[in-house]
């Protein structure tokens, strides 16, 4: 099929852009309803504010280690917004923004990030794999899912997202190879944020772009400005349409920047050059899209303030609700080794229960003295 973006981008050396830094159109904008455009801006804010909130909770001992999402909001939203309900999404811990767009409630992540197992808040209808820690493995799962959907004859596609660091893993390359050979209805996205913890992008590959790898696996590779939500959206729409039409996988590279730390346990001042921070500050994805929306009177300052206040309330409510929830029984963890407990696991569960009871007993005794 004819795809403007892909045809435009047979050259993979210059990122595809729709909005320049001033929020002015430099290519044709995709057709998106005004309410959807505002919703995309809200999702970007949600991604940033959710991230800031979890970092704050972690500092207070109310959340576990977390990888901030800041700087990558346009990629997060642009990747997931064009997908349909039946489509699958699998990413790493830095793709939480995409997951929220795809339909996972912020509270489901809050629960997980507080150190508890995913619960029923993690919606099955969103078709999101649990986010991946062993980076790049998810790219194979996504290709397997895409192959399965093709075998089943459904019209669902699967989108795998990983970072520039993950592209060096064997699984990333095997995933692209399987996707190409089996013409899997998949879109494989590298969110190139410049860093794998402290290892810079140039140490992941000597190739000028990751998008150029597409040709080696028999698929188009597209380089896109990952801080331009419209460019990411349009590229993903076309790659998704291509997959859905049975024309096979596409590799997409979003160039963006991790403006925060790798995780709450990381200190980027040890390795990030100061000038990088300045350079990327000017490329803030929210600022660029805000200019676009304001110019078109789709949103104004007071409207955005209201939006931000609404998001803040939503996140705070979710945190409060989750912290008020009764915790799952600790020994429920035995339910997730296998569907049915083996006699051996049944005995071990008993061991854990006895320990829980002993701790409880000690607590009671301390209370009475």
């Amino acid at each position: 099929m004819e795809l403007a973006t892909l045809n435009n981008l047979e050259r993979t050396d210059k990122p595809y852009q729709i909005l320049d830094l001033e929020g002015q159109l430099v290519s044709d904008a995709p057709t998106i309803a005004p309410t959807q455009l505002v919703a995309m801006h809200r999702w970007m804010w949600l991604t940033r504010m959710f991230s800031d909130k979890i970092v704050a909770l972690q500092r207070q001992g109310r959340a576990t280690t977390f990888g901030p999402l800041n700087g990558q909001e346009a990629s997060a939203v642009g990747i997931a917004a064009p997908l349909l309900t039946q489509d699958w999404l699998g990413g790493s811990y830095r793709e939480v923004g995409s997951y929220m767009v795809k339909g996972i409630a912020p509270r489901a992540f809050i629960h997980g990030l507080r150190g508890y197992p995913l619960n029923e808040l993690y919606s099955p209808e969103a078709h999101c794999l649990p986010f991946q820690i062993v980076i790049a493995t998810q790219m194979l799962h996504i290709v397997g899912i895409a192959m399965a959907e093709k075998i089943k004859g459904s019209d669902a596609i699967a989108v795998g997202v990983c970072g520039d660091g993950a592209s060096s893993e064997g699984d990333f390359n095997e995933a692209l190879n399987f996707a190409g050979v089996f013409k899997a209805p998949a879109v494989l996205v590298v969110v190139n944020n410049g860093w794998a913890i402290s290892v810079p992008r140039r140490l992941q590959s000597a190739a000028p772009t990751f998008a150029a790898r597409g040709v080696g696996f028999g698929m188009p590779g597209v380089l896109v400005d990952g801080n331009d939500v419209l460019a990411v959206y349009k590229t993903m729409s076309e790659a998704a349409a291509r997959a859905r039409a049975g024309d096979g996988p596409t590799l997409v590279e979003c160039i963006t920047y991790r403006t925060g730390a790798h995780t709450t346990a990381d200190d980027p001042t040890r390795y990030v050059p100061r000038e990088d921070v300045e350079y990327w500050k000017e490329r803030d994805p929210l600022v660029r899209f805000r200019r676009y929306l304001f110019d078109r009177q789709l949103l104004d300052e007071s409207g955005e303030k209201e939006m931000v206040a609404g998001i803040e309330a939503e996140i705070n409510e979710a945190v409060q609700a989750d912290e008020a929830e009764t915790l799952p029984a600790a020994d429920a963890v035995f339910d997730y080794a296998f569907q049915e407990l083996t006699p051996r696991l049944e005995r071990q569960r008993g061991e854990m229960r006895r320990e829980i009871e002993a701790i409880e007993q000690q607590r009671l005794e301390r209370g009475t003295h």
Partner: protein
Amino acid sequence: MSIATAINQEATLATAPKLTMIEAINSALRLEMERDERVVMFGEDIGSNGGVFRVTDGLQTRFGPKRVFDTPLAESGIIGTAVGMAVAGLRPIPEIQFAGFSYVAFNQLASQAAHIRLRSGGLYACPMVVRAPYGGGVKTPEMHSESVEGLFMQTPGLKIVIPSSPYDAKGLLAAAVADPDPVIFLENIKMYRSFKQPVPTERYVLPLGQAAVIQEGTDLSVFAYGAMVKVAQDAAKSVHTQTGASIEIIDLRSIVPLDEETIVASVTKTGRAVVVHEAPRMGGLGAELVAIINENCLYSLLKPVLRVTGYDIPYPHAFLEDLYLPTPTRVAQAILDTLED
């Protein structure tokens, strides 16, 4: 088993065709694919070639390349895509051409297939059967003879099945495919064509986690699985001829889940035990069995439990493997030592 069932089974077996392990597994795969269209198979050379051992012979012709297909040479890719297919509702049966190649796929098995149920809070599961030929004795090149069950035994979330006969292979494979969790199904290479056995044409299921008492005895228990069951039988026979000792032989059939009840009952009765496996000794199933015996029936023991196993060295060159693998002579000696008062 009721008497009626036993008689029926005997009647079925009397008329059943005699099959090798390869033919029995092929028959099981065919039946699973016929009854469940979610079952798909893939791996290296399993399509038109029917597998390097011909286990999947004729299956691509019968079920088409959509359900039986060759993949690029990438074991992590094979297992990783299988995880995705299982999540998406298929029942994949990926093949790893030799168990020694599973090291390449270990991450996808250990951190992914085994974890997806926990990681997703039970939302997703990974019902798949990873078939892999394993074991020594046929003079293969390096990395073609490994026994890898010890690695997977230390990986919670995976089940491990190792049949010792064509009849068991067919019934256990049916159970493995029906299982809601990932199963590593290890097929002993030397046993693939070593003997035939009556195997019913129709589908039957042997539940996972149930050991088989191959022969009852009162003086000593021998625990084995896979190719070592036959080695244990030969050893027991020679010891019985020499000493008249009554030896019980138990085929564990699945390592995870492990039939601890049968193990403990047997040792409680006999008071003496020998464990036999091809895999290295260090931290192997033998060590686990000794621990189970200690925890449950130490005071029934009359002698220390002995292990007859592969040595704790990388699997050796072909000309040395007869010294590496447990033989009936080595097992018989261990039995005699354990029988001595």
